[in-house]
């Protein structure tokens, strides 16, 4: 799961990013509206966390701009404006959820997970793929009834695949959803992670679609 955080307050953005990374997410941070608008328009994210009062470009304008250019990523608004008129404005601009500061970081994480799950078309928090189960609310996997231990990168790859179970996820897209914008990686690293995952959940579970990408197989 890769997230875009647009927040200008240094202390809050640091603690948000730290907490989100501790939960296994890849996070890109934008400190002003202009950067945020640009990142969200050009990179692939599972969800965006947008503050409304931002320098350079206002949060509402960013959201409206993305929606106008058909960017469908789920958006969670995080703001100090707690009145219903502001909330309505946020939702009308195209936000999917709204949180008022001060917030508990756990609440932010929970809402983001729910947004990502719903955006992938899953109404139920538990996503089942054969013996593999993913609880999207607490973001943990079980395999054959036992907790599955995963590294952050493995978790990102597997959660991306299970949210799109049965579908082929292109290599480029998977790469973008797993690594942060400024990460130093070589193109083989994804294969290494997939190989490690295959050892944990069985080689046949992750199919390679040649030249295209990977697919999580649920039957059998």
């Amino acid at each position: 799961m890769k997230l875009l955080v647009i927040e200008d307050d240094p202390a809050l953005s640091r603690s948000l990013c730290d907490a989100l990374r501790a939960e296994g997410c890849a996070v890109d941070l934008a400190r002003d509206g202009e950067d945020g608008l640009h990142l969200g328009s050009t990179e692939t994210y599972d969800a965006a966390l947008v503050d409304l009062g931002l320098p350079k470009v206002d949060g509402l304008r960013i959201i409206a701009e993305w929606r106008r250019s058909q960017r469908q990523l789920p958006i969670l608004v995080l703001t100090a404006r707690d009145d219903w008129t502001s909330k309505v404005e946020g939702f009308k601009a195209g936000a999917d959820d709204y949180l008022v500061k001060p917030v508990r970081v756990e609440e932010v994480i929970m809402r983001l997970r729910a947004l990502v799950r719903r955006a992938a078309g899953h109404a139920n928090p538990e996503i089942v793929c054969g013996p593999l189960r993913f609880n999207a609310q607490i973001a943990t996997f079980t395999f054959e009834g036992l907790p599955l231990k995963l590294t952050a990168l493995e978790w990102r790859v597997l959660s991306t695949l299970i949210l799109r179970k049965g579908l082929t996820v292109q290599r480029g897209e998977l790469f973008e959803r797993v690594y942060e914008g400024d990460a130093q990686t070589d193109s083989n690293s994804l294969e290494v992670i997939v190989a490690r995952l295959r050892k944990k959940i069985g080689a046949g579970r992750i199919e390679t679609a040649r030249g295209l990408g990977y697919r999580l197989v649920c039957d059998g």
Partner: protein
Amino acid sequence: MADRRRPSLARRLWLAAVIFVLIALLIAGVVIDRTLDRFTALQIDQRLDAQLLALASALTVGSDGAVRLRRDLDLPPYDRALSGWYWQVTGGDALLRSRSLGDATLALTEPVKGPRQEPLHLRHRTVRLASGSEPFELVAAAPREALSAPIRTARRTLAITLGALALALMGAVTAQVFLVLLPLRRLSRALADVRAGRTRSVPESQPAEVADLVVELNALLAQNADQAERARSHIGNLAHGLKTPLATLAAELRPGHDVDREALRALVEGMDRRIAHHLRRARSAALLGGRHFRTRLAPQIDDLVLALSKIHVDRSLRFSVSIPGDIELACDVNDVNEMCGNLLDNACKWAASEVAISAERLQHSVVISVRDDGVGISANAAEIALSRGGRLDEVTPGTGFGLPITREIAALYGGDVSLNQLQPGLLVKLTLPSAD
């Protein structure tokens, strides 16, 4: 202090009046002068014409064929040499003239001048003694000085009179401007007294023209005082409400004491809710005060339902909205959003599957009903939920019901909130003033 660059009301009034007075006096002066001029000329002309008439009637041809006058017409001033008053009769070989002319002859070419080269004013007449006979040219002349001297004197008098009149009128205008602006000056002194705290309002015994202004001013002063009082009481409540959790925080943080992080967090959240509650109420209270609002209800509810269906997306709630499109509330749009948003959000939290919103117009009010099909609350709990708004210092906002703040905002508009237990569910009725 008054800004010197701003146009002064007194100066403007005074300038306008003075300009009008001067123009009127100027026109009057010109008209009187012309009339005098004509009147003097008419007098002289009549005198000369009378002389011409006398000449014509006295003119005769003697038995010797010489033309002469039947009687002496050289009455004063025609008898005094070079008096400026002359007459002369010419025709054929004849030449008769006044004694005043002596041996001189009047040359009848313009400008006509007398023997002393003095400018003359002429009247003349042609006379025939018998039909078909030779015509005689009769001329009577007066010195131009006889016309201009009286006019000069009259003009001097006229100028002095009009000047005095102008001065008197300007004096009157000055006095008038001063008198008219006197109540404004008194009003400004009275306001200064209010500001200095010497009085609480401006005296209402004022001239009719400023009486309305004074009534409005006093209403504004009363409203300000009221708002300041409300703000003071709110600050007091807020301070009171924050000090208890702060004291607990301080106690929790004392050295050598194990910090209960969850308890601290709960305290911080409680303080945040309290601050949010008071800020919201202060925002609404600041807006109010004799102002008139008009907010159409239906679009606001539609927007709120859109927001709430996203907020509670996992609940898959059904919203049924029945609001006549022409219902308008006499409330600020943000307050309408705040009150309805809280009630709808509550209903969504408690509903099993459906939230119904409807509105109905009574005589001067609108009743908005929000119904959910959840567990509802007991009559006892309803009483508690409502009574919390009753006294501000006991308000505990954010307890799951957005009722206290909704009720307080509604009360600012003279409205109310009531709860009714349904089987199953809860019906909340919000009464607000209608804008019609």
